[in-house]
């Protein structure tokens, strides 16, 4: 293994948010990460730090992760003030240490929002997102009895746009990055997906109102069109979807 000083190996100072539980006050702790290979992913770097901590009898840093390939949406923290770190269109698990330099201080904080409670350290309770989906983020069909898949043609362009919106991984970076901790991008993406598809139209009005109502109830902030969400979203979901949801809201009210 190469040692620090080499281009492919760096030393870092980590400033990490530690919080024992939801109702306990948290604070920053400083750790050293030595001989970090620049080929490591950010989470692998944390793994190595954690293993050392376990061996020296300390409580390892808790963080959420699962797929480690940018699709499950489990991972995500603020890294030096940026959601999922500085790279565009990248989840934290896909962020690699080659984007850091020897001697850097890296500040790691959980997403902060009234609607997301800290479970421990960097781990959050994001069940509010599930609640929003439960309010109407689906098409109401029971299993069985669906017509042939080709019975309803869907224009290719609509299908592509619906797919753009459906690519959301529910990570919460949009809320984290939003100066108002608003969930409009997440909700807009889901509302959009279904308004773009003919299958979703019968329930469009009900869905938009129900999901927006739930979102408001859960304590997210209000959108002020800062567009930070779009810039930080690892799946680069467009704010076009927010506008589309706004229009659905208007339509629902006026019809």
């Amino acid at each position, binding site marked *: 293994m190469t040692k620090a000083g080499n281009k492919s190996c760096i030393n870092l100072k980590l400033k990490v948010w530690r919080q024992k539980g939801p109702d306990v006050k948290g604070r920053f702790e400083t750790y050293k990460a030595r001989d970090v290979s620049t080929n490591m992913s950010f989470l692998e770097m944390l793994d190595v730090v954690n293993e050392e901590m376990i061996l020296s009898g300390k409580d390892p840093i808790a963080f959420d992760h699962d797929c480690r390939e940018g699709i499950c949406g489990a991972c995500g923290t603020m890294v030096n003030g940026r959601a999922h770190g500085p790279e565009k269109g990248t989840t934290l698990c896909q962020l690699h240490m080659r984007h850091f330099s020897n001697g850097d201080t890296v500040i790691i904080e959980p997403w902060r929002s009234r609607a997301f409670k800290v479970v421990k350290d960097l781990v959050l309770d994001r069940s509010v997102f599930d609640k929003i989906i439960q309010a109407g983020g689906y098409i109401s069909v029971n299993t069985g009895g669906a017509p042939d898949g080709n019975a309803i043609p869907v224009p290719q362009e609509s299908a592509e746009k619906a797919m753009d919106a459906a690519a959301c991984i529910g990570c919460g970076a949009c809320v984290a990055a939003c100066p108002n901790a608003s969930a409009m991008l997440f909700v807009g993406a889901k509302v959009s997906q279904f308004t773009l598809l003919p299958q979703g139209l019968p329930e469009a009005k009900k869905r938009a109102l129900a999901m927006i109502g739930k979102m408001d109830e859960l304590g997210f902030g209000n959108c002020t069109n800062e567009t930070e969400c779009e810039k930080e979203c690892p799946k680069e979901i467009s704010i076009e*979807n927010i506008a589309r949801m706004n229009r659905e809201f208007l339509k629902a009210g006026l019809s």
Partner: protein
Amino acid sequence: MQWGLNWFICTLRSSIGKKLIMALTGLGFCIFLIAHLAGNLTICAGEDAFNSYSERLHALGPLVILTEIGLLFFAVTHVFIGAYLFYENFRARPEKYLIKKNAGGRTIGSVTMPYTGLFILLFIVLHLVDFHFVEKTDQTIYQIVLETFSNPGYAFFYIVSMIIVAIHVSHGFWSAFQTLGVSNSGYMSLFRVMGIVISLAVGFGFGLLPIYISFIS
């Protein structure tokens, strides 16, 4: 929630509804600003033109009053809802970040909306006191304008205010269309450009008035 029962209440309760009201009132102000600017620019055509513009405007009588009441209503709505949204947004993140960097979405306009708004409110009050509720029996509006702007302090305040209005509108204009649901990205970039154009027009148009006036007087 009882959607549909009372659409207005529901709209007021919902975040997007409040935003819609902000957008509509804000756009109302934008239209007013443009009209107001067009009127004010008659000053360049000389004293008589300006005074007669003012007279003809006031000759419209009830229409002016109606517009004024409308604007006042818009202003109260815009200010109160804006303040409430600001409060809610503040509450939405009880624990702040140690550091938070701009990812490239925010602009000076968007960051400062509540503050520029507050400043505009202050300006509007002073502005009305100076030009609207001022005693107009023994002097023409032209004279009042000339006199007020001859105070360099006031002229400075006015220019700063206009820059601030421009900043507010630079975000507000396109933002209102986003809120109203224009999702076509082609149109959206058009509105972004228009927002900048309008804010420049407002900034320069109003802001240069005191300078122009100090030249001619």
